[in-house]
């Protein structure tokens, strides 16, 4: 049963407050209802991430059931790795908790602390093996200009981390605003290794920050994407079988 779990995440990278289009917090609420976790990273050096921006970053993540972090550009790669990892675990933990509740009438936290190690190991393993659909939404408004090489490097680094997972992953990349003045542009559809070349070409001076539309578009991509066959291409090791056999 866990093989059928597809973890759906949006990771939003921004350095400013939204100022165009729909409300990003409402968009995050909707995404969450669709079983999607919305993580947000606010970049602080340069840009205009003042307290309004910070509050928005926190609010989007809170309503989107994800995490938020405000970091310097050079911490971006680490933060993306940590967030994606954490969120995968949280998603699986919820699935496992539901199973546990049915089987033993309590979730993991209801077990004595020293018994949780087994469950944690299971969760760890499941989140490594389950499929991941991730949409990266990158703010490409004017102030992000000189940070885009760092963002590209960080995405490449995230890719390195995802490549060693046993489960499959599909990553799509969109920018907001798009290269031709549109609110959102999908520069790489779901693929095992997204094409990052569009990330520098999609630059333009000025333009607003349509964060809400970006989250909406990412949500659409994930809903559509989950209809494509998502069974992981398993790299079988000797004890890979039906994962439901691992439950308690």
């Amino acid at each position, binding site marked *: 049963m866990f093989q059928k779990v597809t973890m759906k995440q949006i990771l939003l990278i921004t350095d400013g407050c939204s100022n165009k289009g729909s409300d990003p917090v409402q968009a995050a609420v909707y995404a969450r209802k669709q079983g999607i976790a919305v993580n947000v990273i606010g970049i602080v050096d340069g840009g205009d991430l003042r307290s309004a921006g910070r509050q928005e970053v*926190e609010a989007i*993540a809170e309503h989107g059931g994800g*995490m*938020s*972090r405000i970091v310097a*550009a*050079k911490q971006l*790669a*680490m*933060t993306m790795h*940590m967030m994606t*990892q*954490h969120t995968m*675990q*949280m998603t699986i*933990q919820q699935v496992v908790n539901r199973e546990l509740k049915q089987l033993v009438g309590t979730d*993991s*936290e209801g077990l*004595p*602390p*020293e018994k*949780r*190690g087994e*469950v*944690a*190991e299971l*969760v*760890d393993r499941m989140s*490594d093996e389950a499929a991941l659909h991730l949409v990266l939404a990158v703010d490409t408004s004017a102030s992000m200009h000189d940070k885009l*090489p*760092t963002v590209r*490097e960080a995405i490449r*680094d995230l890719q*390195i*981390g*995802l*490549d*060693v*997972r*046993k489960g499959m992953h599909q990553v799509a990349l969109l920018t907001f605003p798009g290269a031709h003045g549109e609110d959102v542009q999908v520069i790489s559809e779901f693929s095992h290794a997204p094409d990052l070349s569009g990330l520098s070409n999609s630059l333009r001076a000025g333009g607003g920050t349509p964060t809400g539309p970006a989250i909406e578009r990412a949500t659409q991509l994930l809903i559509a994407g989950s209809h494509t066959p998502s069974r992981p291409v398993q790299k079988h*090791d000797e004890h890979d079988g039906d994962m439901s056999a691992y439950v308690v």
Partner: protein
Amino acid sequence: MSSDLLFRPGQTVTGLWHKRRYTVEGLLGRGANGEVYRVTDSSGQTLALKAAPLSSGLALEHKILKRLSEVARGADLGPRVFDLDDVQVGGQKQFFLVMELVRGTTLPAFLDRRGRHWTPVLLLQLCTYLERLHETGNAFGDLKAENCLVEEARGAVRLVDFGGVTPFGRGVKEYTEWYDRAWWGRGSRMAEEDYDVFALAMLAIALLAPDLRKALTESGVPNGSRLRQAVSSDARLADWRGLLQGVFDGRVRTISAFRQELLPLVKAGVRLEQKEKVRRKPRDWTDWLVVGSGLVLMLVFCQFVLFR
């Protein structure tokens, strides 16, 4: 996410399950995955308490530390663990792990005082720890100078943060760019024996030529060719060239191979230390002679001035 700390100094933390009480003395550090405090238990023993908003990471760390204490065979592989429990903080459950508080000096500070020739000796100890850890089917993952402390009196290294320990064949949980072979484009981020071997080599470079790390990572983009260049030309790495190049070329892939290459350096280091000791002794004595004679001269001078 709030940036407030979970606990304040003086606060009492009482476990919901085991009811043990800890008094918070101060913050030792905070990272992406939690906060570590110095605490005392009811018997007055000083301990380290790691607190996190998620139970799974701590539960795994607890499990691995327990397992390590079984295989350590007398080596102080990991900190001893004492408690794993939950606590209610402001309407929310938080989770904590109580461990031995490892005291010691950071590696750079230790080497500054005792000399760089101690580097191979410290790495040799790490080899032993890593070997024991690998026997359990795990890689250390986040091996770095900041995760090691030296007990000055014995010159013994201790590893402190086991949050990055990852079963072989899985993606490394926590890593630091400088030590990460994948970041340098020299392999995957898979937990394997040679992942830790690479980190050991990078640790050697960081300890022997501390400024290199800053110079080579400044741009935020790894520069593998400059790294190789530094290894082949930096005078401080001269004796280590064979070992380091062996790791980069994939000739040295296991801890035991690393140890083999390290042994001549350890011997050279020990010889140097003995020489230093011999040299230090008479100098201490002559130092006193200089100070003493200086004092006598000054007294004579004072007398001369006062009783003229």
